[in-house]
């Protein structure tokens, strides 16, 4: 009985950490919002969305899940890290990428940076949810 009661909070804790991680990935800053870290949530949302919107405005290349080599796989993983912005870029943005200009190339890097930055924020949210960080 005592083991059961000790196990229950652990499972709950794991489920909550998972929920926080998925939320933080899906919408930048949402994980921190659930953890009541208002300032961090705002900064991470603004940072990731600034990069993602700038990347799309500069007509950067957004990698699709259909990858043919290691470079495209890395590109897809970094882009997918942006969560909702990646889904929006895949299905809502109709302008074709233009990487023939330096601006388009910057756009590709900005969007990839948005995804990687969001993944760092997911790790931060997980650390807070698991109690390893304040």
């Amino acid at each position: 009985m005592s083991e059961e009661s000790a196990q229950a909070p652990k499972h709950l804790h794991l489920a909550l950490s998972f929920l926080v991680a998925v939320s933080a990935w899906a919408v930048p800053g949402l994980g921190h919002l659930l953890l009541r870290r208002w300032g961090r949530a705002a900064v991470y949302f603004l940072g990731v969305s600034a990069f993602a919107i700038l990347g799309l405005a500069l007509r950067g290349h957004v990698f699709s899940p259909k990858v043919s080599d290691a470079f495209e796989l890395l590109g897809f993983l970094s882009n997918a890290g942006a969560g909702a912005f990646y889904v929006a870029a895949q299905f809502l943005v109709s302008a074709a990428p233009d990487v023939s200009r330096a601006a388009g190339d910057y756009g590709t890097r900005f969007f990839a940076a948005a995804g990687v930055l969001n993944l760092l924020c997911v790790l931060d949210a997980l650390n807070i949810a698991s109690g390893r960080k304040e």
Partner: protein
Amino acid sequence: MRLTHFQAMLIFALVISVTFAFLSKQSPRDRLKYAIWSFLAFLLIAIGIAWIMFPFPR
């Protein structure tokens, strides 16, 4: 939308500096110090590398 190389670098440096300050520091004072230091380091290193590359043609 058009951005110069320098403008793109400034935006990148600013966003990364502020976000990393929040990721790695706890107190507001430490975050401010870290963000300013990181932003200036981005700026100085980029300008330094640009000057080193200047004599070399494309």
